[in-house]
């Protein structure tokens, strides 16, 4: 359970980091390391060189600008969780981050890192997918912005290529008043990987009834699965009466797989129940913003 021999460099600037990444196709970025270090210890990852970005403090920001919560590559989960501006602009971040591992992991792990890691059981990839955010990526050749819909290619596989550094993730803010978010998941042990989880964004129409809703699921596919729940819930009263139709749509559309932790049928059942819970939280938040 020790990492293999590896090279190491700790650049003091983004430009130096990009040069180091460009110099070796086998180089990998080390940010919080909360997924990468155990992968190396289990010899599932063996980078030639680690490019440690922990000195790039210019990337440790959490700010709201241009309708986006912008999270820099060195912002720890705990810093995003504690950010009042982030929580006010997009409450789903705080709702989901509470479920990301344990405080000791969140103190070191980065939100951008967990998204690049692209674990299908990860909470933050599902949040980014639901909100249709973007990932900013830099390399020695220039910059690009990757939409969430094109970012998650499969289990532990994102669109970030060798030589590239994901510098920022952008989460769109809550779309105006009368919108709300919710998050629910079930894990065997507190802080463990979710057997199933769901993030929901819902919004009300002018008459106070449900305008529409979207959900993103974790641990039910190779990458986050986004479902539009609108056809099941639009026009209904913004209360628990909408849960069965939303749950039914989730159960019908999702195709979870069985593994050692749960059968496919159990995951499908959980997806339905959790859809109702997260939708309930989202609707109640949306009603509060209307009442406020």
């Amino acid at each position, binding site marked *: 359970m020790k990492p293999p021999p590896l090279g190491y460099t700790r650049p003091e600037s983004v430009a130096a980091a990009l040069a180091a990444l460009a110099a070796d196709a086998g180089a990998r970025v080390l940010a919080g390391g909360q997924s990468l270090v155990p992968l190396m*210890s289990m010899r599932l990852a063996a980078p030639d060189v680690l490019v440690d970005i922990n000195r790039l403090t210019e990337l440790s920001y959490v700010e709201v600008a241009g309708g986006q919560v912008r999270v820099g590559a060195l912002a720890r989960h705990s810093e995003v969780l504690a950010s009042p501006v982030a929580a006010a602009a997009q409450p789903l971040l705080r709702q989901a981050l509470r479920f990301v591992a344990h405080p*000791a992991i969140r103190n070191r792990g980065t939100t951008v890192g967990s998204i690049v890691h692209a674990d299908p059981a990860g909470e933050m990839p599902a949040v980014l997918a639901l909100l249709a955010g973007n990932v900013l990526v830099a390399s020695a050749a220039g910059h690009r912005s990757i939409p969430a819909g094109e970012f998650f290619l499969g289990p532990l596989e994102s669109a970030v290529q060798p030589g590239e550094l994901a510098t920022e993730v952008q989460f769109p803010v809550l779309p105006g008043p009368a919108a709300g978010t919710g998050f629910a998941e079930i894990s065997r042990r507190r802080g463990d990987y979710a057997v199933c989880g769901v993030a929901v964004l819902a919004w009300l129409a002018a008459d106070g009834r449900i305008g529409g809703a979207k959900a993103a699921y974790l641990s039910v596919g190779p990458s986050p699965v986004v479902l539009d729940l609108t056809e099941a819930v639009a026009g209904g009263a913004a209360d628990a009466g909408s849960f069965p139709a939303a749950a039914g749509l989730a159960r019908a559309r999702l195709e979870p797989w069985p593994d050692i932790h749960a059968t496919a049928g159990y995951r499908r059942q959980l997806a339905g129940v959790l859809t109702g819970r997260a939708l309930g939280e989202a609707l109640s938040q949306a009603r509060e913003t209307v009442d406020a």
Partner: protein
Amino acid sequence: MSSGEELHEVRLTVNGTAAVARVPARRLLSDCIRHDLRLTGTHVGCEHGVCGACTILLDGAPVRSCLLLAVSADGAEITTVEGLAEPDGRLSPVQQAFLECHGLQCGFCTSGFLTTITAGLRDVPDPDDEQAREMIGGNLCRCTGYQNILASVHRAADIARERAAAGPA
């Protein structure tokens, strides 16, 4: 132990004292603390971030030392279980509470609980039961059934208050 590998100098402040180690890049911080710095109070259980036994305080915040490379912690201030006691040698409130409440049996997981709860009570000085459970949710103990550890969290909060009220020892 690491012949032929490039060594990196790592400067740390460990329990208030400056320390220097020369380690290969792959050296886990947990191994650096135990093998290079010879502080064996930090225990290594699962070595992949699940059990919490190796939890230390890095610049005051609890982290898993098995999920950090020592070289990446260069310049940091770390606190291990050896650094928790009061300056006068008295047990810290959390240590005293574990003693009083029988918060340990075999003791393997204890240093991780002590560091975790020390930092946890700094953030939440008067936790209710749910907050106490949340505080220790990332640490595994295979002996106690956790009830005495929960009692220790509450007792530690009491002791810290009693000591603060009594003034400096």
